[in-house]
């Protein structure tokens, strides 16, 4: 009999040890939607992995609250969400350049925020190399939020309900830069836009097909644009001069690399949600897509570092422009833009 008890005790111990080894499961309120990071089937695997930053509803909620909290800026007027507006696919509608604290005008157009988990370098010049450290740039920039991480930590420590939110997200009320940045990344990395009409057509979802105009536009696009605006992200993530000026007023990527060959070149922007992300270019000089397409048709300047493929511009007649515009609008992802999970609450 005692032998049986020993066997039983050993098995119980084994099971207890198995539990001790396994990680704690997150406690999830069944009424909440479980926040997930999902890779659309027409996308490759992402660069950002959540292995060192376990995605939880509490971490996401904290990151979102920080993203939308203007009290983090020097004059409490500017949040991340001020210049990254959901209805503009997290770009800044109608603003050529971002407006920071004290109405300071920045020098570059706020880029949209989505599919960041696939991106390996950030900002127009690619200076920031990790999604987690990206917010630091905007937080500290004198013309954006003009603050520093110490000030933010002090504010969060003394402002309810932040300590409690950090506890829910990370298990204790400790607040440090790493926790701030990791929770913000839980929000920004989850912003995936992959449900545009284009995506559904590519995935052969039933009920979705291009109109004849859109299809003509897609074919033109593949002929004239994809060498830089490569599918499925509609950027190859490279840095190029598209001949906006003979001599760029903004040094662009050379500020990062120190190379004269990088003077006045910028990251090729994504064209997803382009319908809502105007104005366009690094300095927001073009208000609409007609101006953009006309630039490629007739406006390309012979800048020193001009991309060789743009030497003669890209000739586009009026009907070709209309077709391309029709195709570009299939890149609009209304499910993303209207997803209330990402909205300020």
């Amino acid at each position, binding site marked *: 009999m005692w*032998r049986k008890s*020993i*066997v039983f005790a*050993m*098995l119980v*111990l*084994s099971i207890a*040890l*198995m539990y*001790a*080894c396994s990680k704690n499961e997150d406690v999830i309120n069944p009424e909440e939607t479980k926040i997930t990071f999902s890779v659309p089937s027409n996308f490759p695997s992402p660069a950002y992995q959540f292995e*060192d*930053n376990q995605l939880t509803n509490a971490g996401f909620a904290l990151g979102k609250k920080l993203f939308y909290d203007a009290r983090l800026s020097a004059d409490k007027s500017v949040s991340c969400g001020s210049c990254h507006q959901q209805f503009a696919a997290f770009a800044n509608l109608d603003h050529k350049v971002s407006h920071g604290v004290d109405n300071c005008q920045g020098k570059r157009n706020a880029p949209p925020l989505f599919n960041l988990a696939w991106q390996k370098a950030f*900002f127009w010049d690619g*200076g*920031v*190399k*990790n*999604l*987690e*450290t990206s917010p*630091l*740039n905007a*937080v*500290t*920039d004198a013309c954006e939020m003009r603050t520093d*991480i*110490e000030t933010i*930590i002090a504010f969060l420590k003394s402002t309810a309900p932040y300590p409690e939110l950090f506890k829910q997200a990370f298990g204790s009320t400790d607040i*440090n*830069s*790493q926790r*701030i*940045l*990791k929770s913000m*990344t839980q929000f920004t990395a989850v912003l995936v836009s992959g449900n545009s009409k284009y995506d559904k057509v590519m995935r052969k979802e039933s009920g979705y097909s291009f109109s004849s105009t859109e299809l003509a536009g897609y074919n033109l696009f593949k002929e004239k644009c994809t060498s830089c605006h490569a599918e499925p992200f509609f950027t190859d993530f490279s840095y190029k001069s598209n001949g906006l000026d003979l001599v760029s007023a903004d040094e662009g990527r050379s*500020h*990062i*690399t*120190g190379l004269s060959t990088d003077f006045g070149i910028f990251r090729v922007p994504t064209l997803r949600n382009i319908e809502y992300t105007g104005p366009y270019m690094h300095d927001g000089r073009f208000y609409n897509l007609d101006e953009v397409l006309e630039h490629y048709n007739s406006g390309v300047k012979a800048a020193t570092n001009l991309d060789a493929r743009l030497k003669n511009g890209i000739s586009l007649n009026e009907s070709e422009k209309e077709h391309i515009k029709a195709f570009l609008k299939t890149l609009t992802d209304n499910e993303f833009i209207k997803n209330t999970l990402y909205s300020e609450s």
Partner: protein
Amino acid sequence: MTTVLEHTQFYYLSKFSKMKISQYLLALLCPIILLSSCKKSDDDITANTKSSFTIEFEHQVNGAALALNTNTYKNAKGEDFKINVFKYYVSNIKLSKADGSTYLIPESYFLIDESKSASKLITINDVPTGDYTKIEYTIGVDYARNFAGAQTGALDPINGMFWTWNSGYIFVKLEGSSPKSTATSNMLTFHIGGVVDPNNTIRTFSTEINAANPLRIRTDAKPNMHFIVNAAALFTGTTDISFASLNFTMGGANSVLVANNYAKGLFRLDHIHN
């Protein structure tokens, strides 16, 4: 094959006593296996005993004690200068024994700051006991960590050694003034960093330890290594720097000049207290 296996199983089943033994064995093995699977894998060099040692960084300028903001020093060109800020990273500390075996101290990242005296004495724990005859470390931060995600401890961006607009750490920061400097308020701003060629400023320092008095790490003896750190080494060694022509660098080719200088003369092992 199948039949043989079935036959074997049947054979063991039929032997009731053997089955009981294997049952107990299994019950015993289960927790043991699980316990060992919980343990983290050990480091390459293992020792039965581990202990600690300390490293002290004594800051000087050409032999004189470094005093921030007050004292005036001279660079190799004979130009006067003062120092207001002097801080730098030491990372990836590696110890070697005479037989060539090495021990890399895991997660060894230290920010040494003249204005924080506690930072100038670092303690390294959990080092396998033994006699070490060489120490080497990175002046700065290895390539990967410059681009890694949000860090904590010495690498926390709160320490003012992380470039937010161009990812990467400032490896060595010296700020001060010189009447020769053409910058505003005669300022000197030397922020050395950058890990991408041709402006890679990662440098390694290594020094042999006198075999007659090696770093003796024992459970009952925690030795202290004493380094002299010469801040003026930024401005001489390979290229003598004049503050009239170079008084500001934040990465790039001029930072490489400075890194090449300090790689030669920033650190000197003075002595070891065993």
